[in-house]
């Protein structure tokens, strides 16, 4: 549709299209005003911030996605993403012992496992165009679950102290005494992801697939990519939460199998 507002058949909605999509932000602001939610500034700020962040990322991605760009740039990008995710986790789960190094190890482990499978089996070609976005999916989708499992474990160690010490007092090791709480925290973190995976295609169409279809990719191909991304997310969440929870479990106990006292309030 030449000269029209939208030009999605080329995978490009254009500046005018982008501006027009801002009408939907105006709808959200209108709802906030109508129901006196007081969220107008937050909505506008979040929308503007997302726009600027993504424009910056899009600009920066130019230096890593071309086939001729050295992979070292992609690797540095991934290191930065992992570091930022670790820092964010340490802020959202403050109080967890050694949270920053544990989070860094968890995200790194997930990146190695998931990207190792995706590229090791030749599912995607190893280049900046695939490496950075897929690593972003690994880290980004694991963040919420990692924070959740960290907080759950810390809360369990505090609120269930009586049960844990009851098991320790019977001669169980720290690992055995904490196992039920570890299992529960991991289930809490993973179940929403499993439910979301089950509902995909029925309740909602996932973002990657929608994006590809809008960009003109054949839906059958878009589905294949989407399925691999969903499996990537499942694997990432499982790996980060498993590594994080095992690390936290070790930090909560002394070598003498004693449950440590919390070092600060759980926020």
């Amino acid at each position: 549709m030449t000269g029209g507002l939208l030009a999605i058949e080329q995978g490009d909605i254009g500046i005018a299209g982008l501006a027009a999509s801002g009408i939907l932000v105006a709808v959200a602001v209108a709802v906030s005003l109508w129901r006196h939610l007081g969220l107008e500034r937050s909505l506008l700020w979040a929308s503007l911030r997302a726009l600027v962040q993504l424009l910056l990322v899009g600009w920066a991605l130019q230096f890593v996605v071309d086939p001729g760009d050295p992979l070292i740039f992609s690797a540095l990008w991934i290191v930065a993403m992992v570091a930022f995710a670790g820092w964010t986790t340490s802020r959202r789960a403050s109080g967890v012992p050694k949270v920053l190094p544990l989070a860094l190890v968890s995200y790194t482990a997930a990146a190695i496992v998931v990207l190792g499978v995706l590229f090791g089996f030749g599912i995607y070609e190893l280049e900046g165009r695939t490496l950075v976005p897929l690593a972003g999916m690994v880290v980004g989708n694991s963040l919420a679950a990692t924070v959740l499992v960290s907080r759950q474990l810390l809360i369990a160690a505090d609120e269930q102290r009586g049960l844990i010490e009851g098991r320790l007092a019977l001669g169980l090791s720290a690992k055995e005494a904490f196992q039920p709480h570890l299992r529960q925290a991991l289930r809490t973190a993973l179940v929403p992801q499993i439910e979301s995976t089950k509902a995909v295609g029925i309740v909602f169409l996932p973002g990657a697939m929608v994006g590809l279809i809008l960009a003109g990719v054949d839906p059958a191909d878009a589905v294949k990519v989407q399925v691999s991304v969903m499996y990537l997310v499942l694997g990432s969440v499982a790996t980060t939460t498993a590594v994080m929870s095992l690390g936290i479990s070790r930090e909560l106990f002394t070598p003498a199998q004693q449950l440590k006292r919390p070092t600060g309030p759980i926020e």
Partner: protein
Amino acid sequence: MSSADAFELVGVDAGPADDPILHGLDLEIPANGVTVLAGPSGAGKSTLLRLLNRLDDPAAGEVRWRDRALTDWDPTDLRRCVAMVFQRPPIFPGTVRDNFAVALPDVTDERAVHVLEHVGLSGELVGQDASTLSGGEAQRMCVARALLTDPAVLLADEPTAALDRSARETVEDLGRALADSGVAVVWVSHDTDQLRRLADHVVVLADGSVRATGHLADLDASPDPLVRRSVGASA
């Protein structure tokens, strides 16, 4: 038991590093009968008990049992020899049998019934959801669970504080029966009547140190009013 089986505490500080509850504690706890730890709230009775099960370590000093520093014991082995029951009995999810399996994974029904009857409970409770037990039943079930590891010592941290009178008496009787059967019992109590019913030995703690120790008759005659008050001596 010989005195070598007793607990020895030498120069023990314990509690938060910036505000220790126990200060320079020197004490020997006999390895037979019922030893009651008495004294005002905050004196450090529960803190002391947790050291004996090694749920906590002292900030300074040493705790010894059977002539070995507790730090030389494997903590899990130690805790199976020195069992502990708490004021609020920790009930694990599942049936009474499931609770027993935490202490002894291959517990048989026969052993489970036997240990229930040993603590004065019906063997029929073995398949019952443990969360439905009354306070007194739950506490006795916890004692039974602890006994499955065949401990030489049972530490009891105010085990009757949350129980009604009838349940309190049954748990006291159980403590006495265990002591008579050779299991040394170290019992924290605020209740002077209970202390007088149970104690073979008494340790009075105050402000984080030992105020007096000995047999009840000796402490009844103590010139220290806090000691006499702590053991419920008649004026």
